[in-house]
């Protein structure tokens, strides 16, 4: 998988004493400030855009996808196993909230929001058997197996009685005024996003994350060095399913209904991969950038033009361009440019280095 990893500056290992990069401390400060600014903008955003409901609804979808891609990245990005079946968890989350609302007669409003964590948990539970079966195979068969599992779930949703068949399930309509409707969903999604990004960041820095990335680089060697590869992969798979389940539930509630075709949508899977690769998988910011840009674009398209084939062509074409020309994605390519630009400045500023060791610095 041509993806970049630990070069994302917001998650680098703590500075090495005697490190030759003079600005490391300054970079981290700048990054923290940047994150803070982004958060503030995100929170204040609706106040500025309140009048344009079209934009707000785009924002809700964008944030939902940012959560999903970040969560997907925790598994696929860090371990290198490409999972193209996470729509299963999305759909499971959607159906869970719908069924709970229906069977337990939950009143519309904030009460349903409280059910979202349950959706996450259910998705996580589903991920256990799925992961156990799928992770037994080699990497490229794994991809295909996840695709297969996805179609099974889609069929089940279409045909099982309790899921309402092709007619789907209607959720209770929430009687918030139109102006705050989008806004409230947006904030709930934002909360889930912050939690997911924090989770991604924590995993990245933890031993667990290190083991995942070792698996990505050389699974056999990792096993030989004591990493429990089976458990680590399964754990990451399950963990990645939970946020996806939660936003699946949120999405269902936002739209007001679930259907098998929409809750289990094959395009969702490819969208996750596309956004992940576009932004840069294996990084923290990459999925966010990818989802933000692409989902906003897609929603804009469907709102302005009708859902005809044009946006599919652009979608697919964009992906091809990204994969072939910028296989590492936007964030790593940009941060790579930044680093080499900075390195050039450092070189020019400092004296030429004394003779390096016999083997030289770069191979």
């Amino acid at each position, binding site marked *: 998988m041509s993806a970049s990893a630990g070069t994302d500056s917001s998650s680098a290992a703590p500075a090495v004493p005697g490190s030759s990069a003079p600005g490391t401390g300054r970079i981290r400060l700048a990054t923290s400030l940047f994150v803070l600014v982004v958060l503030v903008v995100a929170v204040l955003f609706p106040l500025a855009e309140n009048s344009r409901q079209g934009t707000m609804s785009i924002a809700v979808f964008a944030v939902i996808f940012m959560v999903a891609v970040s969560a997907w990245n925790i598994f696929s990005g860090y371990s290198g196993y490409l999972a193209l079946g996470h729509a299963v968890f999305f759909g499971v989350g959607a159906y869970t909230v719908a069924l709970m609302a229906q069977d337990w007669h939950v009143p519309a409003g904030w009460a349903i929001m409280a059910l979202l964590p349950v959706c996450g948990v259910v998705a996580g539970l589903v991920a256990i058997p799925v992961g156990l079966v799928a992770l037994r195979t080699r990497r490229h068969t794994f991809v295909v197996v996840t695709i297969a599992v996805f179609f099974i779930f889609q069929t089940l949703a279409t045909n099982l009685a309790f899921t309402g068949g092709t007619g789907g399930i209607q959720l209770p309509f929430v009687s918030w005024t139109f102006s705050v409707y989008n806004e409230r969903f947006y904030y709930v999604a934002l909360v889930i996003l912050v939690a997911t990004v924090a989770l991604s960041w924590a995993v990245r820095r933890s031993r667990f994350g290190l083991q995942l990335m070792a698996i990505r680089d050389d699974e*056999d060697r990792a096993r030989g060095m004591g990493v429990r590869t089976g458990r680590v992969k399964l754990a990451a798979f399950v963990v990645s399913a939970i946020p996806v389940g939660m936003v699946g539930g949120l999405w269902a509630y936002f739209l007001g209904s679930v259907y098998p075709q929409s809750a289990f949508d094959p395009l969702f899977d490819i969208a996750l991969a596309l956004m992940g690769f576009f932004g840069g998988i294996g990084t923290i910011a990459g999925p966010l950038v990818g989802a933000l840009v692409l989902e906003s674009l897609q929603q804009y398209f469907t709102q302005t033009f009708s859902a005809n084939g044009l946006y599919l062509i652009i979608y697919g074409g964009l992906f091809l361009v990204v994969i072939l020309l910028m296989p590492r994605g936007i964030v790593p390519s940009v941060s790579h440019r930044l680093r080499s630009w900075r390195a050039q400045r450092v070189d020019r500023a400092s004296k030429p280095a004394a003779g390096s060791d016999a083997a030289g610095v770069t191979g």
Partner: protein
Amino acid sequence: MSFDGLIEAIIDGVLTGGVYALMAAGLSLIFGVMDIINIAQGAMVVLGAYLSYVLSVHLGLDLFVGLLITVPAMFALGVLLEWGFMRRLREGDRTSMSILVTYAFAIVIEGVLTLIFGSDYEELNASYTTNSVHVLNFYLPEIYLLGFAMAAVLLGGLYLLFFRTKFGRGLRASLQNRTAADLIGINVNRTRMLAVGIGVAVTACGGMVYGATVAFNPDSGYDLISRLLAIVILGGMGSIGGAMASAVLLLVLADVVAVAWAPVWSILVFFAAILLVLSVRPEGLFGARAGRAQ
């Protein structure tokens, strides 16, 4: 469910299995030659169906006659794909990248078809799509028989191509030992390109039969590729014979299930089968035993 119904389901499964075998063989061939999993194979079948549709509705050509045009067209598409994209994927992670790249193709193809034709369902019509042949006490749709016959002829033709022609020998050689093939002077790149062309060209035939038996729209590619993938995984990636055998097997099972329980469950057969097999034998029924997962 009657015994007769069961027999009919089995026969139907064998007949349709033949056509699926053809399409799955193309998928397996592409994998064997290039180490590439062509997720767009399903979309290409749909594309083939639409091409047949255009030729039939707007030019009045008979469906089988139309193949004379659609098959070379799809062949050219395959060659173009290999030359333009697949070749440029790095050897190291080629398979994983190919999944994403071909999935993107599938989306582009779907987009183009939606743009041109819209989302309505279409069908290919001809006399033989509605007529049935009365054999013993079964009614077999003519199109099933014709489709099976065509698939059998084509698969036989492919066999001859691989085992009786110079090109086929060169192809088999490059599959068995690439270095030696290089050292003998075989133009491995060109051989691969042509093999991919063939792998895609079969979707034109499959598309015509598919479109004549089932109503289709641009979205239908997903259902198709999931069946084809199931078939190829079960048979073992890269084994053409395996793909053929498992195609017939799965189609028969699916049809039997459809008759015994309900049609909607038949798709599940596909996936349940592969999950079962993969749990026990991760390389598929006919696949080579893989080395340690990397």
